[in-house]
C-alpha cells in the first residue's frame, strides 16, 4: 500500500519533469530556429506583402523575385564557387598540418617540445587583432626573409587579394583557430594507448608508417571535428577574409557590401529613397542564400558531427 503510493508519486514527478523538459527544449529550439524560419518566409514574399496586415508567416503572393535580385547583386554563383574553393582548400591543409603537429606534440617528444607547445597555447590566447597589422604589411610586401627578391630580381610580391595568405597560414597550421585544432588532435592522440604504437613498431613499422596506417584511421572522430569546424568557420569568417581579400568575390565580402550595392542598384545612387523595408527584405534573402549551403551540409552530416565530437579527445 505504502509502496504503491510512493511509486505513483515517483511517476508523477517523472511526468512533470518530462513536461517541463519538453517545454524548455521546444521553446529554446524555437528561439534558435526563429530567425531562419523568418528569413525563409520573408524570402518568398512579394513586396506588397510587406505592408499587408494579414501576412505574418505565409506570404499571400509567392515570388522568387527576392532571390533573383540577391543572386544578381551578390554574383552568387561565382561567390559560392570561390568561397567553396577557399574553404575546402584551407580546411584540407589545416587538417593535415594540425594533425601532424598534434601527433608530434602528443607522441614524439623531443627537447623543447614542451616549450613549443606553450607557443601553441599562446597562439590561442593572443587576440588575432594584435598581430593583424604586421601580418598585413608582411603579406603586402612578401619577401620570405629576403628569399623572394633574390628570385624575382629585387621585388617582393604582394600577396593580398590572392588565396596565398590562406594557403600559407593553413599549410603551416597557423590559420584561423588552428591552435584549437592542434590542441584537439594532441588530446586525442594522447588518449590512444601506447601499446598500439609499440605493437606497430614490433611489427616493423617506422614512425611515419605508424602514423599513417595506425594512428590516423583511429583518429577519424577528431579529424571529422576539425574538418567541420575549420570549413564552417572559414566559410563564415569575415575577420581575415575582409582584410586579405577585399576585391575578391567570396561570401563574406559580398555579404558585407550587400546593403550598399543594393541601394545603388535599386535606386539611383547612395542617397536614394529606396524603401528601407524592401532593402532589408532582399538583404535577408542574401543572408539566407549565404548560409543555405552550410545548412544543407549540416543536414547531412549533423548526426556524424555530434557523435564524432563526443568521441574526440576534447574532454580527456
Amino acid at each position, binding site marked *: 500500500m505504502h509502496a504503491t503510493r510512493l511509486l505513483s508519486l515517483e511517476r508523477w514527478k517523472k511526468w512533470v519533469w518530462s513536461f517541463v*523538459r519538453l517545454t524548455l527544449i521546444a521553446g529554446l529550439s524555437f528561439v*534558435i530556429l526563429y530567425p531562419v524560419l523568418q528569413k525563409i518566409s520573408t524570402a518568398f514574399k512579394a513586396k506588397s506583402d510587406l505592408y499587408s496586415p494579414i501576412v505574418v508567416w505565409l506570404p499571400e503572393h509567392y515570388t522568387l523575385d527576392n532571390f533573383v535580385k540577391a543572386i544578381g547583386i551578390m554574383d552568387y554563383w561565382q561567390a559560392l564557387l570561390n568561397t567553396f574553393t577557399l574553404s575546402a582548400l584551407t580546411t584540407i591543409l589545416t587538417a593535415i598540418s594540425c594533425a601532424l603537429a598534434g601527433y608530434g606534440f602528443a607522441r614524439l617528444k623531443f627537447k623543447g617540445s614542451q616549450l613549443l607547445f606553450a607557443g601553441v597555447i599562446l597562439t590561442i590566447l593572443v587576440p588575432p*587583432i594584435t598581430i593583424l597589422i604586421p601580418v598585413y604589411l608582411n603579406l603586402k610586401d612578401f619577401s620570405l626573409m629576403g628569399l623572394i627578391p633574390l628570385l624575382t630580381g629585387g621585388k617582393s610580391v604582394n600577396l593580398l587579394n590572392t588565396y596565398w595568405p590562406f594557403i600559407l597560414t593553413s599549410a603551416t597550421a597557423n590559420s584561423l583557430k588552428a591552435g584549437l585544432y592542434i590542441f584537439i588532435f594532441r588530446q586525442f592522440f594522447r588518449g590512444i594507448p601506447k601499446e598500439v604504437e609499440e605493437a606497430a*613498431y614490433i611489427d616493423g613499422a617506422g614512425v611515419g608508417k605508424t602514423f599513417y596506417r595506425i594512428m590516423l584511421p583511429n583518429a577519424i572522430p577528431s579529424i571529422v571535428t576539425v574538418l567541420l569546424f575549420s570549413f564552417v568557420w572559414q566559410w563564415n569568417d569575415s575577420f581575415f577574409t575582409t582584410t586579405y581579400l577585399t576585391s575578391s568575390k567570396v561570401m563574406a565580402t559580398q555579404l558585407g557590401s550587400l546593403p550598399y550595392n543594393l541601394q545603388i542598384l535599386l535606386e539611383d545612387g547612395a542617397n536614394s529613397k529606396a524603401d528601407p523595408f524592401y532593402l532589408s527584405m532582399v538583404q535577408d534573402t542574401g543572408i539566407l542564400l549565404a548560409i543555405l549551403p552550410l545548412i544543407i551540409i549540416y543536414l547531412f552530416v549533423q548526426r556524424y558531427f555530434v557523435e564524432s565530437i563526443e568521441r574526440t579527445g576534447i574532454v580527456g
Partner: protein
Amino acid sequence: MKSILRLDRRSYNEQKAIMGFFYVLPWLLGFIFFFLIPLLSSLRYSLSSVQANSDGLIVHFSGFQNYVEALTVNTEFNRSLADAIMNMVINVPLIVIFSLFLAVLLNQKFIGRSLARSIFFLPVILASGVILSLESTSLIQAVNDQNAGAGAIQGLGTFELEGLMLDAGLSEWVVNYLTSAVSRIYSIVSQSGVQILIFLAGIQTISPQLYEASKMEGATGYEAFWKITFPMVSPLILVNSIYTIIDSFSNNAMTDLIRETGFTQFNFGLSSAMAWLYFAAVALILAVSSYLISKKVFYYD
C-alpha cells in the same frame, strides 16, 4: 641479446624525437613567420611613431607615447574596452551555466533527442561576424516582432517575473541580471553551441556505475547532479570559461576600433598600442578567472 634490444629501443626513441621535430616543423615555421615575428613587430610599432610612404615604413622610437594617447587622448578607447569587459563579465557565467544545464538536459533520454541536439548545435554553424551584424540591422525582424506583439508580451513577461522575484526577497541586482538574461536569450543560446558540445562529451565519459551506486543509496536526481555530474565536469567548466572568454573577445567594438585606427586612419602605432593594451586586459582576465575557477576544480585521477 638484451643489450641489442635496448640499443634498438634507444635508437627508436631517438628516431621518434627527430621525426617529432619534423612533424612539428610546418607549424613551427608558421608560428615564427605568421605569429612570433608579427607579434614582436607589433610591440615595436606600439612603441614607435610609424609613417607609411612609398618606400615602406618609417619607424621612429617614441616610448610610451602611443599608450598614453590611447588611454588619455583617444575618446573611444576606454569606453570600448570597458564595454567589452563588461559584456564579457555579464555573458560568460550565463553561457557556461546555461550550456551545462542544456548538456545535462540533452543527455537524458527523451523522444526527439537527436532532433533537439541537431537544433542546438545549429548556432555553431550560423553564428558569425557578418551574419550577426547584418542581422542586428534587419528591419524586417524588428517589424515582424512589433506586428506579432512579441515585444510587448516579452516586456510584460519579464516585468511580471521581476515583480515576482522582488516580492520573493531577491536582491534587486540579482533580479536585474536574471531578467536581462531572459531578454538576451537568443544571443546566449547562439553563443553556447560549442560549449554544450564539450559539456555533453564530458558527461558521457562519466561511468554509469557511479549513478547506479548513488541510486542504490537513495540519491535523488538533484543530488546526483551536484555530487557526481558537477564535480566530474568541473575541469570542463574551466575549459569552457576560457573558451567563452576568448570567443567573446574575438569580435567586438574594441576590435572594430583597433581595425579602424589601423586600416582607415593608417595610424599603425596607435592601433598597435591599443591592440597590446587590449591583449594585456584579456590576459589579465584569463589569468584571474582561471586561477579562481581552478581552485574549485575537482580532478578525478
